[in-house]
């Protein structure tokens, strides 16, 4: 097993729970489960165990102050969106996104059926936007809810707002499918938007069936999105480094205290110099 892969991708090999299946042949990796959205037709879905895949996403808002063009009721123009974390096309996984805006908006329930999954509006107030992701049926029947607070005004209230500089709030997250269906896995195993661990040997997936084609737009990625130079960069490296450093510190403390304890345990009646 190569050590070059990062920790998460090795999961399938190392972290099998100790059930009897691990040494068996391929069929045992598959589980049969019954959806019952429609209870009349019982469709058997074959799922792949221990191959959890995830889709890194970023969602958030970008808000521009309208400056001269601003009115009482419309001081800002903002966009709320969901994008792939590295600007990949999410439509392979996400079928549609529903943005629930403040009731003061017309038709506050905005449905977006194709990428880019975003809504642009004008307004004056900050509120919480509910973003619901609906996935393709082979991926997941259940929806996933996200929440984001729309921010129009920058942290430092120094002087008038700059129309050129928007207020950008983005959140990174990962949508995890712990046990994807065979069909889904076959379809997305090489898709750039999806993180797939190394598949176990002997896993035979069916040939992928493409889902409903997108609308007239050919590409659903956001690499050339007009706002993409405002997109934030989310690198796990920094956070990993910081965490590793913190862990080292804590481990050192633990070792020191451990030594102190063993010393103390040897001598019940003496007073130790406090460390």
């Amino acid at each position, binding site marked *: 097993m190569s050590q070059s892969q990062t920790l998460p991708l090795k999961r399938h090999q190392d972290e099998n729970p100790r059930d009897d299946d691990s040494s068996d042949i391929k069929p045992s990796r598959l589980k049969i489960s019954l959806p019952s959205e429609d209870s009349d037709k019982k469709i058997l879905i074959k799922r792949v165990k221990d191959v959890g895949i995830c889709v890194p996403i970023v969602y958030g808002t970008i808000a521009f102050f309208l400056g001269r063009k601003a009115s009482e009721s419309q001081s800002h123009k903002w966009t709320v969106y969901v994008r792939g974390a590295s600007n990949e096309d999410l439509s392979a996984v996400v079928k549609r996104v529903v943005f629930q805006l403040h009731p003061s908006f017309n038709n506050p329930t905005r449905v977006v059926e194709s990428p880019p999954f975003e809504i642009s509006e004008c307004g004056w107030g900050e509120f919480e936007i509910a973003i619901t992701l609906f996935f393709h049926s082979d991926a997941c029947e259940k929806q996933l809810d996200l929440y984001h607070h729309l921010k129009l005004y920058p942290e430092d209230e120094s002087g008038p707002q700059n129309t050129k500089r928007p207020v950008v709030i983005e959140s990174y997250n990962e949508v*995890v499918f712990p046990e994807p269906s065979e069909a889904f896995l076959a379809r997305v195993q090489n898709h750039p938007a999806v993180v797939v661990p190394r598949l176990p040997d002997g896993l035979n997936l069916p040939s992928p069936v493409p889902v409903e084609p997108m609308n007239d737009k050919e590409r659903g990625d956001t690499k050339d999105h007009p706002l993409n130079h405002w997109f934030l960069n989310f690198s796990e490296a920094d956070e990993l480094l910081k965490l590793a450093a913190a862990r080292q510190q804590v481990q050192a403390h633990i070792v020191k*205290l451990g030594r102190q304890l063993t010393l103390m345990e040897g001598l019940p009646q003496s007073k130790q110099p406090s460390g």
Partner: protein
Amino acid sequence: MDAKDILGLHKNSFPSSLDNKKSRPPKESQRKPDGISREVYALTGGMPPLMPSIDASQLKKKPPTHEKVTWQWLPFTNSARKDDLHLYHWVRVVNGVLPTGDYSFAKYNKSVDIIKYTDEEYEKYLTDPMWTKEETNELFDLCERFDLRFVVIADRFPSSRTVEELKDRYYSVLRAILLARAASSGDIATHPIIKEPYNVSQEMERKRALSMVLSQTRQQEKRDEEVLIEAKRIAELRMASKVTEQSQLAVASNADAELTERAVPGETVSPSNVQLPQMVVPSADNASTLASLRMLRVYLRTYALEQMVQASNATAGVRTIKRVEQTLQDLGVNLKPRVPTKAVCAEHLELRREILTWLNLQKQVQYKEAEGSSFRDGSYGETPGTPKDRTFIPDSLNFGGERVGKKDQKRKGHGAPPTAAHKRPRKQKASDL
């Protein structure tokens, strides 16, 4: 003054043989027996008890008897005996009247009614390839003699048969006879052996299982308990998620009832991974959280992290959790990771666990220090500063202490003077002696 009187000492004279005479009477008068002897009285400490335990004056009194009771040595017979044995015993005779009735213990001679079958009945209903007629007769005879005490019967049985075999034969015969003799099947339907016939294999299994349980080593017991706790926890978790599933089902139209129908063989997370019993609780929490996460079709990484953090916080109190969060902040780590990838979440979780360990260690060290100082503060009645204490501390300990102190100095830059000041008085006292 009284003490001197008691001792027989006069103010101006030494105790002499003359005074001995005087000393005795006062001592005697101190006795206060009142119905109990002096030795017994001394058992209470020589002083009258605070509460009157028994009224001493009552002890020597005899209960009032209006009748004339004599005891006579008389013969008796026992109706429980088959022979005509005459024995003798003491009999309490009141006013010349003998007690009547049978020997008082005769009523305890109970025995079991064993059925008797005729040869004819044997030929008709009771033949069995495994049992000869002689053996069956012998069995029933022993049953009669020993009141169905099968252990004894098994021991006495001429050919070696197990208790279960004997029981099986006896009960089958009984059953067959009862069924044959009953006028209708309804008559004896309530008889216990008809309702629940003896099941040999079940009995043997049961006894084997019992002996296994009895002979389990402590380690096995512990492991079994762990497995049971684990199973219970997973079952509860599954119930809880089933309940939430069903409530969502009512709300959302496209809720997935797949989960409830899913067979989950892999979900029995075995604690066989666990070596030490102390580790069971933390890994059990994680395992069940992981299991419940796996049951979701889709979830957010942050949600998973929250669940795992909650699981590991479950054993800690509110204050500890706050301290963990404070420590995270001090270390410059976000309480919720900014880029929650799988790796980052794993590291974050591990860091939290390590902080918990660290905090626990800190607590332990504090307790030990508190213990140590309370020991020294005269819990054994010795004054704290007694040089005697210090001599028994070998000098090597001081060096050990010194070393630790120096290590700290290197790390934290503590000044040397405080530790040295501690040492000097000790060393002086040691050398004094």
